[in-house]
């Protein structure tokens, strides 16, 4: 997870460099030359490794360029995504193979990896849900919240708030990743503060750990943990009801 995030940061930094018109043209020409010599060789993948760029992203660049030439128009994002997900749809067999090779060989990007990430996230949400049920904490899950028309929705909202390590929490967000500086800042900005603004203080669980210094908003109402908390205090009368 940490490696992946660091890698992503590096890719983000260099993203623009690979997307200049000249770079795209160079990559495309090199690809054409490469497959011209040997269609079976991992041309695209090697090209990506050589310029230190994520193979799936390289595949996307070349595919985009390819389609542009073929269709004489800028292809839609949906089409590109769909072709990346299922290279069989790519009209050129060689390119399809090349793209597929890039996809399966990419450890951080691409539809396959996205799916794995999604699956991991989902699995941890399920785990969290289990734990909540086990603790008898009633909650409203994200989909229910969406259905009610909430504009921003954490994974779980507790129907009856509890105190974790002395801090009241109203919601819990599960993050199946490592909480590093930049991703945490982004999450704070896009999600956690928004949740706070609507539901009050809450808990974020970074299942793969986090940088301890980031847990600095406890007083304010954003608590970080790397596991399901053990120190939970519930409202007494709701205990009595059970």
């Amino acid at each position, binding site marked *: 997870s940490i490696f992946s995030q660091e890698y992503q940061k590096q890719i983000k930094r260099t993203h623009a460099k690979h997307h200049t018109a000249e770079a795209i043209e160079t990559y495309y020409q090199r690809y054409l030359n490469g497959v011209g010599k040997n269609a079976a060789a991992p041309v695209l993948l090697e090209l990506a490794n050589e310029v230190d760029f994520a193979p799936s992203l390289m595949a996307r660049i070349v595919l985009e360029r390819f389609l542009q030439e073929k269709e004489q128009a800028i292809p839609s994002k949906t089409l590109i995504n769909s072709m990346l997900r299922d290279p069989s749809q790519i009209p050129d067999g060689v390119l399809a*193979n090349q793209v597929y090779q890039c996809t399966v060989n990419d450890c951080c990007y691409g539809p396959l990896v996205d799916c*794995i990430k*999604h699956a991991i996230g989902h699995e941890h949400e399920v785990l969290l849900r289990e734990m909540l049920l086990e603790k008898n904490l009633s909650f409203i899950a994200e989909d229910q919240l969406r259905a009610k028309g*909430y504009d921003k929705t954490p994974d779980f909202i507790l129907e009856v708030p509890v105190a974790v390590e002395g801090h009241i929490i109203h919601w819990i967000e599960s993050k199946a990743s490592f909480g590093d500086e930049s991703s945490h800042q982004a999450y704070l900005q896009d999600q956690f503060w928004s949740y706070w603004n609507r539901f009050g203080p809450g808990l974020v669980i970074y299942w793969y750990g986090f940088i301890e210094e980031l847990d600095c908003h406890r007083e304010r109402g954003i608590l970080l943990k790397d596991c399901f908390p053990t120190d939970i205090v519930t409202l007494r009368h709701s205990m009595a009801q059970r």
Partner: protein
Amino acid sequence: GLKVLEQLLLQHPSVAAGGIHRQIGDRSWQILDFSIRISCFSIHLVSLSLLQKDFVPFLLNFLREQTSQILTNGPSTPAKTPNSKASGSQRTGSERRAGHKASLGSFLTATPDALPARRGRRKGGSSVGASGRQVARDLGRSLAEEEDGKNDSASWSGGRRKRSEVPLVSARSPPSQLNLNNLEEFPPMGAASGSAGCFYKPSRRINPTPVSAERPLSKPKMCFTSTPVSQSPAARFSSGTSLEAFTAVQEGNLTSVISNSLQEEREMLKKERCKLLHQASSPAGISLDPGTPTKPSYTRSASLPAESHLVTCANPTKVSCKKQLECLAQLYSSCIAENLVPNIFLELFFVLQLLTSKGTSTAEDGDSDLEDNERNASGRQHFRSVHNCVYFAVQVLDYQYEVISQLEKGMLKLLAENERIASFSPTLHERLRQAYESSTAKVSLLLPCSVQSVSFQPETDNRSNFPSDRAFHIFKKQRDIFYELLREWEDNHEKSGWDFERVLGNKIRAMMAHLSATCNHSHFARLFQKQLTQMCKGPIGGGASWGDTPDQDVLNMLGSDNLSRLKRLQERFVVPQSIRGPCPPPSFPGCQQFFRDFILSAGSYQFNQHLMDSLCLKILELNGLTLVEHEHNDGEADMDEQDEKKRFTVVLLSLRLLAKFLGFLVFLPYRTVEQPTRDLQDSAVALRNQTLPVLDVLKLLRQSIRDQRSILTIPWIVEYLSLVDHIAPFLDYYRKVFCLLLQVYRLMVLSEDKEMSFLNKLLILAVLGWLFQVGSCVLFCSCSVLSAFPSFSHQDSVPLVDQQLLYTCCPYLGELRKLLASFVAGNGAKNGGFIRKITPTAAESLAPKTSVTQRKLQVELEQAFFHNQPPSLRRTVEFVAERVGSNCVKHIKATLVAELVQRAEVMLQDKVKEEDANHDKLLEEVCTHLYEEGAQALIKGREFCKKKGPEAVRVLLPEETSAAVLNSAEDIAVELATEKACGWLSANIAALIKREVKATFSRMLKVPGLPLPGEDALESRRDCPPGCQHCAPFPSQIINEIKDVLCVAVGPRDEDEVIDCLWLECLLGRLSQTLRCRKFMCPTSEQQLAKCTVELASLLVSDRVPLNLGIKPPEKSSERLRVKNNPTYGLLKLLLSVWKEDFGTPVPVQLMFSKKNMGYLAEVQHREWDLFLFILNGLVEHELMRTGEVESCLRSLRELPWPSVSN
């Protein structure tokens, strides 16, 4: 007359006390007689008011002057007396200038044309025109007349004297006429200043009608100090009229600035204490009054001796002129007791100052300083020594015991421990000790809650409350931005150099622009107001300003962890402390500052208007709440009483907060830094008299008095009024409000009576007194017409106010205690340390809303039914009806509507599959179909209400309620609930269904790669097999592993890189387990697994997976055996079985025939086509594909460009 008395008192101290007494008595006792009867009757008061006007301000000023030299502790307390520069007309130039200095307000606003206007104006007749300056001028004139008539008991102007001497005559005159006269002839009391003896202490005097001359808002300090006032305008002027200056003034920042500078000045004075002339060299003094370099020397500070920090020991045996002091104390106490002073707490503060006065050696030893040389020798016998001051103070305290004993416990403790009281009056000491011991009036410190957000409520905040998606989306952003700003402010606003406007101004205005673009102001105003209430109704917002160390029990409660938090909070909120006197200007302490600055920076007319609307509505709602409804005689009252108190506290504090902000907004457009000139004021008054008030406070005030609810209403109206601009008090409307408040104040005589609880009264007196000091009490002594209130009586008898609330509302009362505490500490005015915060234990109020029914008779019957029942019954029924009705709608939504939507989903799915239909049309069709069924909602709703209503009513009403009453109550509740629910449903059910179906439909269309066909058939697979332990590997794990396999297969790879065959088999086994356990599976994972396994199969049949067989295949084995032993068959079999048995989602096996995968196949040796055939057979056998499908796929292969490679 008074002049004579004064002269007698001052000049002939040696005359037998009895004589003086008698002479004073001639008039004063008469006055007191009247004032004692005051509460009963207006007639007396009308006539009395003339006397009061003359007498009370005189008395107060007299006391201030007498004591000015001895008081070195705390800020000086303002006296009441109108003091006018004009009064100096008969004096020497220097004295006259001193006069200017004293009534700085007049001085500041005086324009060259002021004097010429003076005489002519008086006959003007119109009371409306009684502007501040005019009043001052008239005062001056009166003073001058007074001077003329010095030594003549008939010095009063003819008509007035007559009336005062013959009260009954005046009683017959129409009050209104008197009032006019009063306005014009406003107290000639400055007489005191005319006395040569007193005139040496001009600095002690403050015009009691400061409002008219000077805006308390813009000069916070002027109310209780004179010296600093001379600086505050300077500070203000130097900072110009910018927003910053304005806000600074507003929030009382200046106050601290001023007090700081005052401190500095004091330091300076200590050094140069004998060089009085030098004092005027302070920059402020020069800029303001360059012409009178010597006069400011008469300020109290000037005479402050270096040893002032040494407390002189007060000695009862050294008291002189006891008789006079007793007489004065009695007089003074009566004035306080009868509410003839504008602010009783100010007087108490003054008395405590006397009690704690430090005294000076000079004062004791004789007269060596400048003043004494100049003074009228007989001028200050009475209060020259500490002993006399203390004696007087103790006497007054004794008279005021009843009030004092109601103050909070800490205060009582300090009083009980005060050694001066102990030595001067052992009996009072004993009483105070007992009061302390029996007092339960502990004002406790509670931790303020930190910032909380306003929760998102779907009912008001979801998409359906916005006109467009865009508006909704933008508001979503605005909400986040708002809190971002709030957090930024919270983190930084106390850092030096942080400037609200500079940092947040543009962000706020950008936000306003967005709001305007989408007409989201009302949403934002509501959020803003809710956040304001949430953050500020607590103690921080209240800004308790009195220092104290937290009680031990509080500390214990907090624990060490919270203690640091507490400390931090304190650091955040404690302003440098000093005793500031009991009348601080209105301010926006703590978080309120953010909201005020936000409004100012936003500068948005639309936003302000929406906010005012919102505030008015909430104020009216809260003000209208029925908070007390049971009779307080019966035994069960205890619990209710507690609840009521709590509720009352919450409501009152909220109201005060909201009213303050409303006042701020309402008067904001008219606010000016400086007092407008007379002409501007006249035209402004003429203009603004035409406009209607935003909130009809006069009506509300009258209602509250009539309904005996003034204890709730007056405190917030005071907050509202404390923010009036310069002009507003002169408007007809607000003048009436002020007059009415004044009457209330006068009549609210403090005593234990059944009509109104003592503390209730104390609160009202405290807030009104404060308003009269800081607010716009233009007419304090002048509008005492009581005709409006024949039946004025207070029966808000329920003791709703306790000390906690009193001190929360009036944190400035803590000044009294600070003063005492600082005396104990012996460290003068400095008082650092903890601030006590008081949090009301909050309970949100519920506002029962009355449903309006159309059927008149039914309504009347219903009303009749409730009439003779306890009010709680009605509240319960209405509450039940409201809730049940609302729950009914929710229930229908969750059941019937949800059901219909589900059906719609199925229908839509079918139809979407069928044709590429017009989605809108499709939607319309389906909905129309459902509408008929929607009609069931009404039937179900009625059933629901009928079932739930009675249950709830029965639970909520007392067990003993008679059957008939219970039945009726149930019926009404059901009826009301049904009406509410069905009314809503019949109007909205169609729209609701449509909205929900539409939302579902668009969700349906949006889900990527929705596997439409065949999904229903697989529905049953969505549960884990029975007894599943959910211990299968996670889907993500499996995808990851398969990815690794694909990676090796697709290459590039090293020569020796192989995949262990057994391991792969095992992986497929685990895949099977994972697919069977549904717990962690999500659609995307499953689809991906399906896709990956198909890819894997393709690679297997193309012999692209470098399998390591584990055991070397026997070399001699036949070709046939080799095929049989080929583990790939086993793997393919496994895959086929997994596809068939374990997947809950369709497996895209047709991908095997994709160009890419066929490309792999095309490259293999012929032998391996066996594998392909094998899988084709398998697919058909396992019913994963039909033969026809396989054939058509194979046919389409022909269209592919086959490589020309041939084997």
